[in-house]
């Protein structure tokens, strides 16, 4: 490796969060990233910025000041109504050039995963994907940890020579701060020249996806795997789910067998969930499944095989036959609820 020039890091200050939204409706991953940005910024005495690009967004921008942002940079232009890569990238570039943030955190949504790499290439800097741990060194370098190889290994990555440092983070990985009653900070309105607002993309139609009760937002989940032997046994699972006000989800084999809708698959090729409580029934705990649920607050796992790898990530491992444990558990919980 030849000698490489390093930027003057003291010229790059602040931790920025890209505000993910559709039509001004802010995606909750934004609040989670603001929580993380606040924690990192406080360690190196940096401000926290939010970068809000859209149309008629200035009013909702103030809301971000309740969640840890010190400054909200707002690019508010009718040409930014729908997400189109060139104008959004132009606004993003303008912010980076003017403000020179040290780090930028972006939600790993469709928009975030499109914009962040564009910015990384434009500024010839590093972008670390799907970080699960973010820390900061005194010299303002981020320590970024991310899974790769489908969750089979973790990599610790840094971007030591260039700025800004970019990282994407999936929804439900970081924790939002509770909303502060008082807003502190300011909203700064910015503009880019109209000639930069042109695009070779036209948005023809935006249609809502079929209304689904997304398992990603569930507080409680009962997850089922191949330990459940027949479709009729799902009745018992539903009874438990009803008692706990839980959503039912499961592993890929159950989705493939048609017992569960695809949208209820947890894991690498399914959804990521982070409920308060997840009870897994007859799930072995493959890395692909675990990748989608291991940051749940409380994991209870029922499996008859003591060696099942689900027990490596469970907080409470219940070694037993689900066909014996489940009816008892339903009976118990009914008793508790009546008590």
């Amino acid at each position: 490796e030849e000698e490489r020039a390093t930027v003057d890091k003291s010229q790059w200050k602040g931790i920025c969060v890209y505000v993910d939204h559709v039509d001004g409706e802010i995606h909750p991953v934004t609040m989670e990233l603001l929580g993380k940005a606040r924690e990192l910024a406080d360690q190196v005495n940096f401000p926290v910025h939010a970068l809000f690009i859209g149309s008629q967004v200035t009013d909702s921008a103030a809301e971000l000041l309740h969640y840890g942002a010190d400054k909200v940079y707002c690019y508010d232009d009718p040409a930014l109504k729908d997400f189109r890569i060139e104008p959004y990238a132009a606004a993003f570039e303008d912010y980076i050039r003017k403000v020179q943030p040290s780090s930028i955190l972006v939600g790993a949504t469709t928009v975030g995963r499109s914009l962040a790499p564009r910015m990384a290439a434009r500024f010839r800097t590093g972008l670390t994907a799907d970080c699960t741990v973010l820390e900061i060194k005194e010299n303002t370098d981020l320590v970024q940890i991310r899974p790769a190889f489908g969750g089979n290994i973790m990599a610790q990555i840094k971007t030591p020579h260039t700025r800004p440092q970019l990282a994407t983070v999936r929804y439900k990985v970081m924790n939002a701060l509770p909303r502060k009653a008082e807003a502190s900070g300011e909203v700064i309105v910015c503009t880019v020249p109209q000639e930069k607002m042109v695009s070779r993309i036209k948005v023809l139609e935006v249609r809502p996806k079929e209304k689904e009760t997304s398992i990603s937002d569930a507080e409680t989940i009962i997850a089922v795997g191949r330990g459940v032997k027949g479709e009729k046994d799902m009745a018992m699972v539903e009874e438990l789910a009803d008692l706990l006000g839980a959503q039912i989800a499961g592993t890929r084999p159950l989705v493939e067998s048609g017992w569960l809708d695809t949208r209820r698959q947890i894991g690498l090729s399914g959804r990521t969930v982070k409920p308060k409580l997840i009870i897994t029934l007859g799930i072995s705990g493959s890395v692909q499944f675990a990748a989608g649920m291991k940051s749940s607050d409380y994991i209870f796992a029922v499996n008859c095989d003591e060696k099942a790898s689900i027990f490596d990530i469970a907080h409470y491992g219940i070694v037993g036959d689900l066909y014996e444990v489940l009816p008892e558990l339903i009976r118990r919980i009914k008793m508790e609820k009546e008590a």
Partner: protein
Amino acid sequence: MNILVCIKQVPGSNKVDVDAKTGVLKRDGVESKMNPYDLFALETAFRIRENRGGKVTVLTMGPPQAEAVIREAFMMGADDGALISDRKFGGADVLATSYTISQAIRKLGSFDLILCGKQTTDGDTAQVGPEVAEYLDIPHVANVLRIVELKEDALILDMDMPHTVEMVEVLYPCLLTVEKDIFMPRLPSYRRKLETSAWPVKTLTFADFEDQDVMKYGLNGSPTQVERIFPPAVNAQREMLRGEAEELAAEVSTKLVHLKLI
């Protein structure tokens, strides 16, 4: 219609081991295959060619043995292919990889459409497509679910968003990253295997590129550094419950109440 598909060779399984002493991935003796998500990009290219005519070229960057994925693409129906390979490109992160690929694309000619998979199964970043598009200064659309219409000068597509599906029209030239299941990929054919076995695969090296700045390629051109790799942590604070179903159920419900989960 001139279509280019970017494909990558990845380990046959993503169950990799880390050498406990050196902290290096054990890649020796691991079989390789085409990144499964790239099969969907290839199939999309073939369907578009069926509809509009033209040529499908495949491009991969990797060590010399990555030629195998070009051959596999030939067996499925690709018309032409090139391998980007040079010691100078080793150790590239996404930025250096994308820059190298964009230099190769410029060298190969001009394309109306460039297709990428959604992500790979090894590095798994889903960043290469958009970065290549940036370096080529063309628009891109990520997470394409469906091709709605092929027009003379544009494509109409459905793009997957967290809560919505957006239908967009994008002018050529452009780059798309396609979702898995956009089309069912075809299998390589034996007849094509015989037909294509003698086809040459071009190799592009550093010397072929317009930009001769070595600091933009390989490890030198990579702003990210992998400091260490390690297996995912196992949870040490677990509590195991054993016994008769009745006791287990009682213990679990008590815990749920205690944790304010019921």
